């Protein structure tokens, strides 16, 4: 018996719906719908004007079709017409159609706005409400502009009916969200707060939402609402369920309003006024107490409504994070829920407790529930609940329970749902790293992780374990041993092979003494996996083999056989082929000494934020909150990062790098991984400069032009810059050119002045500044030539030189004042500046020029071309001396290495000129590779003299350089490297 439509029954609609329901197939349904659409279309197009009733019927049919998933592209106009009907039912259908089917870009929006306006200004509250609801649903920008000013009046006017006020609040909220600027500010914002006191709880409910959003935007404007919200909340929670008859839901007074009020209070910090604070705490305690009372009804609606308020109260307690007793009570309450028979409650309790775990007051209390949470992880039938359990275990983990939690998570991982494995792997890896019991435990954990869930172990995880093993020499032998054992498993994940290959290649010698893991056994074990692995892993293993040739000369023959194997030498994969060829060549040509230098143990990686954590944050943005809050804990446990950084003995002797030849470095992985290992930050040999064999030929031609014009007059420089827009265009940065005043930032100094002393420093339409400089030892003398290019005089021409910050103590600058303060049109004046280098420095002194030109003040700020290398003197030495000194300069900080993409095309002669211009003495024949440069020089500062050694390795294929500098002063190393970087 089909239900008959209520009210004015629409028989046609009922028939249509029944037809659709009786359709046996999708095709039949589609057919029936098409028929109906054609019918409606013809009715709308027909000459006969439809009466309101028919229009209403057809609009309902269209809605129904829309819900079935079909697009409706007509009927909008008819719906708009219905808006102006005087019949409530027809008007309502019109608004309904528009709310559901019209998007904000519709061209009909103007007509709709007009209809809404008409309804807003009627005296009929029912019509006003319909109009307001429509605005609240569509809320386009155009609507906001046309209607926003009207709404606040409705909200605060004493004459407005409650129902209208309710709609008006949410309508305004919508317009505020769409375009806040259209909502007028004014006296109403003061009065809207008082709606929290309104008699009508429906009005309070709507107003609370509006105030919440407004207060998030400008909290100060609504601060008075805190008190109003607290007293309203207090009245609700202390009322008996009979007081608020109509708003009591299953014996819970106004649960939704209470939730909203509690959420509004979360916009603000705890109230400072003790009375207010006391009253709020009373409320919160009452809510917590009620949770302990016997339920007034067995219905789930009762407990849900009660607990909705309870959870929101706990959110507020956590948000305030100042009341230890409340926090602990909240935690105990949630602890009870953890074992509740309602899945929903267990889920929410786990979720809330995760927040509590990050508060220092309740962290310990949360930890007490660890066993329950672990049980949940094992026994919950719902994966979303298990997911929450994982989150909570992660949140409650600290040094004291890390071992147990990690063990439980690992064991759960074996059976975990696929959907959450990757995230779990990240979490385990982070916890193991953050709270290591010891490093052997850490290594065990990560290897277990790879063993159990190898497919879900992202690259970041295994990079990290290698970084840590390399940085901690006390764990290297152990790591080699366990990874060797892990590789013996019959089926072994490729990630394990990667870690194994890398660690054995570096530290295989530490376990080679044992017959069971002799070099040959190690090699055979790794090689037994070789053919099962993907190309990147094979590349890594080839690097391991060349390292083995260095570590274990006794098995060189077998290793060379592998390299020589046609499968490798002629591999279709260019990377593998190249590695095989070059490693084979390297092992044949190079002496044992050279080999030992090339394949020196990896230097430690710089410490930085764990890349795994970054990945997890990316995956789950809300995790970062936990991390941030954790910083508040007084006893912040040291992380692996810190401890590694704080123990100098963990740093293995830095490698003396030399000779890399053109061979690919023993790179752990392919270039894609570079950034993750932080290779760009320069941990030595890990960066395969030559790795990217397929690098594009050369950068854009413009760069070449710039090199060529290094010594040509600047006027042409301008031309070439124009020709090559992609080239560095701040040769003549005209920061101060037209700005009448105030541009304090100095124009960046052009790199070419690092290698030459004379030239045009600055030029614009008005002024040209030339410079000539001479340096000897720690002294220098600059002549500046100011040329007026115009035919009018510069008045009040005052150049001043300043040494900002640290520079003042490192550089002594004396400026001779100008004889005149006017530079006539077409004239040039000269100024002499004497400088003395006291200590090493980075920034250049700033020349700031002020003058008045035809009545307007001009200001130009420039950097003077005074760099550290100006006080540099070349040194000649032979290869032995060079290598001895190089090796002496091996403490941390004395070396700076940069690997960077060539800005200019690599050219042997140009590089030579630049290095000589920079001040280095070039030592030919020291580096076996004639393409590389080795140089030496001394920085002569007044306070000290600093010897500098340089090695620059260009790589033609990759268009990259590797620059290594060693000096006896850490700061000089960094500063020279920065200057050099800009030249190539």
């Amino acid at each position, binding site marked *: 018996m089909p*239900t008959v*439509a209520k009210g004015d029954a629409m028989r046609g609609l009922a028939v249509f719906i029944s037809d659709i329901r009786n359709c046996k197939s999708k095709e039949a349904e589609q057919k029936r719908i098409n028929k109906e659409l054609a019918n409606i279309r013809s009715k709308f197009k027909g000459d006969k004007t439809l009466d309101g009733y028919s229009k*209403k019927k057809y609009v309902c049919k269209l809605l129904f079709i829309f819900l079935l998933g079909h697009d409706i592209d007509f009927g909008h106009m008819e719906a708009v017409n219905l808006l102006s009907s005087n019949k409530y039912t027809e008007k309502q259908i019109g608004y309904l159609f528009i709310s559901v089917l019209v998007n904000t870009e519709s061209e009909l929006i103007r007509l709709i706005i007009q209809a809404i306006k008409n309804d807003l200004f009627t005296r009929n509250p029912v019509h006003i409400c319909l109009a307001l609801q429509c605005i609240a649903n569509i809320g386009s920008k155009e609507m906001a502009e046309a209607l926003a000013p009207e709404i606040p009046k409705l909200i605060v006017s004493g004459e407005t009916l409650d129902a209208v006020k309710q709609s008006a609040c949410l309508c305004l*909220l919508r317009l505020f969200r769409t375009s806040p600027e259209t909502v007028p500010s004014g006296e109403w914002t003061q009065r809207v707060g008082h709606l929290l006191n309104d008699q009508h709880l429906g009005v309070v409910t709507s107003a609370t939402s509006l105030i919440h959003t407004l207060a998030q935007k400008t909290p100060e404007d609504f601060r008075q609402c805190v008190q109003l919200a607290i007293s309203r909340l207090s009245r609700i929670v202390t009322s008996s369920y009979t007081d608020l008859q109509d708003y009591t839901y299953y014996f819970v007074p106004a649960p*939704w309003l209470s939730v909203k009020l509690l959420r509004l209070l979360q916009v603000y910090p705890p109230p400072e006024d003790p009375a207010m604070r006391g009253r709020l705490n009373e409320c919160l305690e009452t809510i917590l107490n009620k949770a302990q009372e016997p339920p007034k009804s067995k219905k789930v609606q009762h407990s*849900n*409504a009660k607990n909705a308020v309870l959870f929101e109260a706990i959110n507020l307690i956590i948000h305030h994070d100042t009341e230890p007793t409340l926090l602990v009570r909240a935690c105990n309450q949630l602890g009870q829920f953890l074992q509740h028979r309602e899945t*929903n409650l267990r889920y929410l309790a786990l979720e809330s407790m995760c927040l509590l775990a990050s508060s220092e007051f309740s962290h310990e209390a949360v930890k007490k529930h660890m066993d329950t949470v672990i049980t949940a992880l094992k026994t919950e039938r719902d994966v979303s*609940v298990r997911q929450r359990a994982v989150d909570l275990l992660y949140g409650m983990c600290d040094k004291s329970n890390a071992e147990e939690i990690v063990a439980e998570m690992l064991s759960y991982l074996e059976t975990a749902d696929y959907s959450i494995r990757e995230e779990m792997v990240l979490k385990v890896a982070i916890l193991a790293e953050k709270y290591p019991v010891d490093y052997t435990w850490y290594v065990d954990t990560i290897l277990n992780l790879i063993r159990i869930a190898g497919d879900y172990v992202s690259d970041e995880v295994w990079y990290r374990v290698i970084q840590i093993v390399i940085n901690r020499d006390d764990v290297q032998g152990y790591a080699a041993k366990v990874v060797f054992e892990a590789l013996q498993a019959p089926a072994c994940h490729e990630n394990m092979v990667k870690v194994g290959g890398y660690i054995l290649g570096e530290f295989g010698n530490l376990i080679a003494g044992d017959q069971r893991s002799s070099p040959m056994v190690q090699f055979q074990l790794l090689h037994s996996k070789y053919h099962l692995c993907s190309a990147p892993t094979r590349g890594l293993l080839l690097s391991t083999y060349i390292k083995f040739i260095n570590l274990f000369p006794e098995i060189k023959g077998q290793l060379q056989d592998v390299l020589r194997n046609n499968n490798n030498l002629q591999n279709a994969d260019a990377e593998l082929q190249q590695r095989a060829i070059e490693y084979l060549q390297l092992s044949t040509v190079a002496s044992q000494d050279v080999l030992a230098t090339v394949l020196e143990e990896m230097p430690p990686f710089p410490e930085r934020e764990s890349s795994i954590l970054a990945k997890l944050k990316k995956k789950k943005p809300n995790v970062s909150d936990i991390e941030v809050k954790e910083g508040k804990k007084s006893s912040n446990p040291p992380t692996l990062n810190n401890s590694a950084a704080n123990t100098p003995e963990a740093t293995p002797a830095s490698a003396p790098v030399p000779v890399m030849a053109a061979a690919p470095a023993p790179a752990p992985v392919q270039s894609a991984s570079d950034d993750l290992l932080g290779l760009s930050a320069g941990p030595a040999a890990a960066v395969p400069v030559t790795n990217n064999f397929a690098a594009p030929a050369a950068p854009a031609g413009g760069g070449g032009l710039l090199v060529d014009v290094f010594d040509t007059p600047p006027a042409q420089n301008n031309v070439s810059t124009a020709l090559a827009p992609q080239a560095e265009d701040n040769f003549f940065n005209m920061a101060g050119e037209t700005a009448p005043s105030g541009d304090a930032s100095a124009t960046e100094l052009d790199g070419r002045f690092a290698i030459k002393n004379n030239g045009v420093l600055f030029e614009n339409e008005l002024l040209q500044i030339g410079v000539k400089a001479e340096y000897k030892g720690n002294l220098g003398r600059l002549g500046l030539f100011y040329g007026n290019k115009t035919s009018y005089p510069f008045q009040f021409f005052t150049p001043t030189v300043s040494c900002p910050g640290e520079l003042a103590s490192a550089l002594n600058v004396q400026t001779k004042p100008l004889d005149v303060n006017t530079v006539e049109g077409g004239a040039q004046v000269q100024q002499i500046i004497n400088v003395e280098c006291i200590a090493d420095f980075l920034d250049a002194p700033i020349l700031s020029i002020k003058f008045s030109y035809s009545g307007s003040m001009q200001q130009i700020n420039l950097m003077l071309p005074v760099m550290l290398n100006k006080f540099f003197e070349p040194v000649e030495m032979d290869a032995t001396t060079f290598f001895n000194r190089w090796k002496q300069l091996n403490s941390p900080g004395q070396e700076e290495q940069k690997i960077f993409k060539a800005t200019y095309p690599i050219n042997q002669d140009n590089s030579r000129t630049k290095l000589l211009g920079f001040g280095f003495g070039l030592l030919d024949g020291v580096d076996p590779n004639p393409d590389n440069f080795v140089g030496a020089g001394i920085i002569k500062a007044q306070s000290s003299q600093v010897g500098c050694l340089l090695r620059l390795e260009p790589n033609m294929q990759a268009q990259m350089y590797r620059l290594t500098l060693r000096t006896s002063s850490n700061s000089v190393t960094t500063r020279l490297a920065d200057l050099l970087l800009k030249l190539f």
Partner: protein
Amino acid sequence: MLKFILLVNKQGQTRLAQYYEHPEHERVSIERDIIRKCLAREDSQCSFLEYKNFKLVYRRYASLYFIVGVDHTENELAILELIHNIVETYDKYFDKVCELDIMFNLDKAYMILEEMVMNGRIVEMNQNRILLPIRVMDQAAQ
């Protein structure tokens, strides 16, 4: 806030859909996906699930599923009871509401919803007040 309310039957047909934010992707495909996810769940599973960057709160009444999409600030239990209150209000108006009532009286079903939730926020939870305008309308029509 609420992002949408969907009423869906066990066959996966949408019977009512109200959006408070324009759906980012194609409405039909996203609805299908959401419905499939909810229908696949067992009664013992919890009523909340993470979906893309928001949460779904759902409740089943006989053959009808009420599915509400909410952002992460929303109180899940409050939404769960909002659903129940909607159902009770429908029940009060239609007298033992069933899927057919909603289909045949789509306009009324929407109107009731409109009185309860507007712009993704709860406006009124008092059933008598919710039904007041619609009763006014019914009287006017007679």
